[in-house]
Structures are given as structure tokens and as C-alpha cells.
């Protein structure tokens, strides 16, 4: 093996890598935030007494969960223009990520909602709260606290999925890494550092979320 390690080109371009990482985090945050809203609505739809809603929601979840995310990304970015919807790379990826997240989070939220004793809703009804108020002030806050561990896992997973934005040339971390790799031929160094960045970030996110879990835990 005639390969001498030379990390210099990687360190010189560290700012690009970090910018890519920052972009990836931003995409993850916004994508998951929107995904949470979609997922919450879908979870309620999955539990709705209206059959059409249940079917629609179940269809959405099954479709998205069984389709490779890369296909979804390409579909939204390349195929939508043929029916008149033209989006820029960033928006397209963001929407794809949100829809993808929504389908996975819907299952998480649905489990969380089903675990809430129905007495909670009845207690809310008994003091005269409206249905939407009960959802807003009781059901959703309790449910979110209960599903926080699963939510954390989903967040980390979705952050890693932002690496796929590179497939449509969104300049996040993986894209930057590939660029450096192709330009400098420092193959081992580039990918080692990139992996390390991802692993470190995931670790920090996990740590922060565990702190959050502890602070919000209902079993104090």
C-alpha cells in the first residue's frame, strides 16, 4: 500500500466541511420541525374515527416508509417539474425530508397517543375544556414527554439522512467531503474526518437530547 497520510488538504478545507455540517444541521432541524407537525397530524388521522382519514394517513405512511429516500428526493426534485412544480434544491430536499420524517414520526406519535389513558381526556372534558384544548394542553405535552427517547433516535437518524442532500448537489457535509476527495485525492483522510464529524455530532446531539429528557421527565 503506497499511501502516505497527509491531512493538510483536509485541514485547509475544514471551514468548508464545517459549513456543510452546519447546513446539514439546519436542514435537519427545519425538516424535523415540519416533519413533527406532519407526523402529529398524521398520528391523529391514524387514530381518527373517520375511516377515510385513517386510510389516507396509513397510505401515506406505508408509501413513504417503504420507498428509498433517494428515490423520494429525486422524484421531488427531477420529476415534479414535469407537472409544473419547480423547486430549488434546498426547498425540494427540505420538503422531501419533512415528508419522510413525518411518516416515521407518525408511528412514534401514534404509539405515544395510544399509551395515554383515556381518563386524561375525560378529566379534561369534565372541567369543560374543548377537544382542541385538551389536545393542546394535556394530550400532546404528555405524549411528547413520553416519546422523547424515540424522538431523539429519530432526530439523529434524520440528521444522518441529510447526507443524501449531496445527491442533488446541496452543499452539506457529504457533498463538501466528496468535493475535497475528488480535488485532493486524499481519500482516506477526507472520509475519516468526515465520518468523525458525523459521529461526533450524533454523539453531542444524543447527549443534549438526553439532558432534555431528564429535565422534562415525568418521573422526577
Amino acid at each position, binding site marked *: 500500500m503506497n499511501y502516505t497520510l497527509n491531512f493538510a488538504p483536509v485541514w485547509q478545507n475544514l471551514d468548508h466541511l464545517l459549513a456543510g455540517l452546519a447546513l446539514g444541521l439546519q436542514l435537519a432541524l427545519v425538516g424535523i420541525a415540519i416533519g413533527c407537525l406532519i407526523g402529529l397530524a398524521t398520528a391523529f388521522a391514524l387514530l381518527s374515527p373517520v375511516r377515510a382519514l385513517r386510510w389516507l394517513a396509513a397510505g401515506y405512511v406505508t408509501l413513504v416508509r417503504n420507498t428509498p429516500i433517494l428515490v423520494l428526493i429525486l422524484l421531488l426534485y427531477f420529476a415534479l417539474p414535469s407537472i409544473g412544480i419547480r423547486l430549488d434544491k434546498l426547498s425540494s430536499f427540505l420538503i422531501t425530508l419533512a415528508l419522510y420524517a413525518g411518516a416515521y414520526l407518525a408511528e412514534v406519535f401514534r404509539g405515544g397517543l395510544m399509551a395515554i*389513558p383515556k*381518563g*386524561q381526556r*375525560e*378529566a*379534561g*372534558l*369534565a*372541567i*369543560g*375544556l*374543548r*377537544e382542541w*384544548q385538551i389536545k393542546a*394542553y*394535556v394530550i400532546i*405535552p*404528555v405524549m411528547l*414527554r413520553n416519546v422523547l427517547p424515540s424522538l431523539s433516535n429519530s432526530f439523529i437518524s434524520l440528521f444522518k439522512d441529510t447526507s443524501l442532500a449531496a445527491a442533488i448537489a446541496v452543499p452539506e457535509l457529504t457533498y463538501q467531503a466528496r468535493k475535497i476527495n475528488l480535488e485532493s485525492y486524499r481519500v482516506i483522510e477526507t472520509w475519516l474526518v468526515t465520518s468523525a464529524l458525523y459521529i461526533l455530532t450524533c454523539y453531542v446531539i444524543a447527549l443534549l437530547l438526553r439532558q432534555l429528557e431528564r429535565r422534562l421527565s*415525568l*418521573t*422526577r
Partner: protein
Amino acid sequence: MTDSNVPLLSIDDLHKSFGTVEVLKGIDLSLDRGDVVTLIGSSGSGKTTLLRCVNLLEDFQGGSIRLAGEAIGYREEGGRRQRLPEREIARQRSLTGMAFQQFNLFPHLTALENVTLGLRKVKKMGKDEAVAIGEQWLRRVGLIERRDYHPGQLSGGQQQRVAIARAIAMNPSLMLFDEPTSALDPELVGEVLAVIKDLAQDGMTMLLVTHEMRFAYEVSDRIVFMSQGRIEEQGPPRELFERPRSTRLAEFLGRTSF
């Protein structure tokens, strides 16, 4: 404007079914202001279902329930019976208060927050006013020092007392108690019964379902014995317990410890 001659709660020929099974077969019951009425009977008699119809946690198919003259849950319109819109029903529910067997306190809120939630979101009170009332009622049930505790940090008896405070703080005309002590360890039952007795003596109108026969005897103005979806017998506690007229009641009392 409430006419003081109109009963506070008036149930007329109430019918309720779960699917094809009829569980309430024509209930007639009325309560005047300040009455404390306890429903007793074996499980399946319909007593809990009846209680839950009063605040429309269960719907009913026939008859009517009136609270201070106002029809609960449904209205007659052009000869057809229609369920009231959700907003109306929510308002009607806030006229009654309910204490549940499982307490059902909101786990993510402190005791005080549990009590003030309804005040702020239903009665639209400002924070200071709500807190003042909330603290007053927590003090009344003896739990003011636990105002900032979460339900998970409270014993069963404490939770139930907070739950009662939560219901009473809404200033209901009628309090409903659904087996308030059945889920409690025996040592904790007394503190909850003491609170209920206290409220009764202050003139709160109450409809209770309980298995605590001695308590029912002590606190009630009237006992109503239900069996298989009907009211078999009702009357003052002394009369019912010592001179039961129906055989079913006699059997029931013979089986339960008193």
C-alpha cells in the same frame, strides 16, 4: 335566572344503550340544591353509567337530563332530537365537576397548575386570579404545601384531593364522584372521605357512586339503589339500610360489609 323551585338536577326517563344492550332502562331522578345523593348497587347496575351521562361523558338515547332547568347535551328541534354543538356541551360540562376513580390528574402539571388549568382556559381568568382561587382550594383540601409538586410525587390520597380541588375550583353547581376511593390504599381512604364530607356539610350538591357503605350512610341525604338499569328503591339512608323494601336491596346489603 334560576327558579329556586326548579330542581338542580332533573333526570327524566333516561334510556341508554351500549350498542344493542340497554343499560339504563328509564331512570327518573331529581336533586335539589344542597342534596347529597349516593348511588349504590352491584357492578352492572348502571350507576356509574348514569353518573357519566350527567356530564355527558356518555351519551344517551332517550329521556332528558336538566341542570338548573337547562337541557343537557341534546335539544328538540322540529320534533327531532339533536346533539348540541361541542362548544355548548363543553360549557355545560363546566357547570358540573367530576372526581374520577383513577384521579386522572395531568401528570405534566403541578398540583396548582392542575387546579388552575380550567380556570385559565375555560373561565378565561387571568393568571393571578386563577392562582389565588387555586391556592384557596388547595388549602381547603389540605395540600397547599404541595402546590408545586407533580402528581408523580404525591400519594394516591393526595392526588385525589388535588383532583377534587381541581373540580371544585371551577365552582360547579353539582359535584359528581365516581368511586373516588376505590383505587386507594385503605389508609388513604379516610383523608379523601373527610374532604368530601366537609364539602357536603358546606352545602355542595353532590351525586356520588361509592362502595363505602358506612360513608354513604353518614354523608347522604338520600341513597338510591340501582339494579339492572333501574332504580329499585330510594330514600333516606336510615330507612334504606335498616328497612329495605326490595329483596334485591336486602340481598345487596347482606352481601356488602357495613
